[in-house]
């Protein structure tokens, strides 16, 4: 099993969610995060004092999936989240040792 983690632009979240539903992904966890990579932040001015705000708001999407599905999930996210400009985000895949569904106690692939 794999954990697919994606950092995307907040306004692309609807597109990413739609694309993942299309390929049959049934659930995901989403959180609001802040960070920066090559895209720098912005400046704000208060009574003439300029502050640079380095961190840019982003959305983190996390999906646990079967090994076989992982590439399709990554592809769907990358295709749907792309605007072609700096700051589109990143997607990475990490191995997951075990998963348990809290309600039933099912383990492994059955719990995905």
């Amino acid at each position, binding site marked *: 099993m794999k954990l697919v983690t994606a950092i995307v632009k907040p306004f692309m979240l609807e597109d990413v969610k739609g694309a993942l539903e299309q390929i049959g992904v049934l659930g995901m966890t989403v959180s609001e995060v802040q960070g920066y990579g090559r895209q720098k932040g912005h400046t704000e*001015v*208060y*009574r*003439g*004092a300029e502050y640079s705000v380095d961190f840019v708001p982003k959305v983190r999407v996390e999906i646990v999936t079967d090994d076989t599905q992982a590439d399709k999930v990554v592809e769907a996210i990358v295709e749907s989240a792309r605007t072609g400009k700096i700051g589109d985000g990143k997607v990475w895949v990490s191995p997951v040792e075990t998963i348990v569904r809290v309600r039933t106690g099912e383990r492994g692939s059955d719990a995905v």
Partner: protein
Amino acid sequence: MINTGDTAWVLAGAALVMLMTPGLAFFYGGMVRSKSVLNMLMMNFICLAIIGVLWTLYGYSWAFGNDAFGGLVGGDEFAGLGKTIGHMVGAAASGPPPVPWPGPDALPALAFVMFQLMFAVITPALISGAIADRTKFLSWALFVILWATIVYFPVAHWVFSFDGFTGVNSHGGWIANTLKAEDFAGGTAVHINAGSAGFALALVLGRRKGWPRDHIRPHNLPFVLLGASLLWFGWYGFNAGSALSASDLAGVAFTNTTVATCSAVLGWLLVEQLRDGKPTTLGAASGAVAGLVAITPACGFVSPLGGIAIGLIAGAVCALSVSVKYKFGFDDSLDVVGVHLVGGLIGTLLIGFFGTKNVNPAALGDDGLFYGGGLTQLGRQAIAAFAVMGYSFLVALVIGMVIKHTIGFRVDPEEETSGIDEAEHAESGYDFSALGAMATSGLAHYNLGGADKVGAATSSTGAKED
């Protein structure tokens, strides 16, 4: 004989000016960080409570009692306000010598007492912006008591107490009667006074941790604009109410208050547009306050076009002067100096240029420079402005140092970082956490008397019985 129209307007004006202090609290409160908002609101609100009591005990008497010493301070005949009941103020009650200004008819003394109380409340409240985010609350309360007693009450006597106004043959303060400087509603006694004390306290307390390197952004700009709007509304009581009559002069003051504030907003935003490329909400709110401050002393002495000019100058100059603190490295956190001291000086001095007896024939002073009056009035304005500025600065510095070296004026660095609301008031302004009550360990102690102080009992053991 009581003039009922005038009395009604002065009572309504007192209520309007009362609203300015909570308005100021939100203007300031929005500019601090979310972890200090309650402390900022409280520093302002406590002034209503403290000054309301002091004013009754001796404040009004020291300001408006018959002069006790060289035009510097009033006597104690009105202490406790007992002798104001059934007493009138104004020329008709006190007989000759006639009072040319304020108005000619009699007001019940207590309407005037309450109107002037609200000025005494907001003046120390204005100072709090200079020392936001880092002041021990009890030390602040002590400062308010001492500064009002030693500075505000006497200075109100200097500026606002006219010969013959509060009693037959009573004598007032030196700025109003001997110097004959003009200050319609408090450019000197309120704004220069507070701005100068704010500067002194910013020096006594020192910079906030991390200033100016770290981001100390306003946490709620809608509060700032809301507060500025409440100030603008209340300021009609402050300025038009200072005519002490429902009269032509009140209409003049109301008009000038409006147009100067409008042009000051434009002046501040123009500076921002040219210098920073964007007009800001904080700039609009600050411009409005700068205009209100500057027109305060002048609103009963200038024409509406003069009012527009004063507002425009104040908006632009204050917008530029708020950056001075970065150059000299003093943390006047919310720009009490840049807005109130500078704005107060601009308005007080510009009377020497734009003041005209065409607008106010009863004015005690002379025409300004632009109306052929020469430099006489400008000189008087400058003496009044710098006298108040110097006195307030020196006394605030001394009181501040005494508090600093006895009970301490500043919270611990650790408390400053974690948040002054929690450290000084055991409260949080906002609960944004979805976890809500789960983030606390439940009701630790229900205080029915005696027992532990709140905040001391934040142990993780949950319910704790004595």
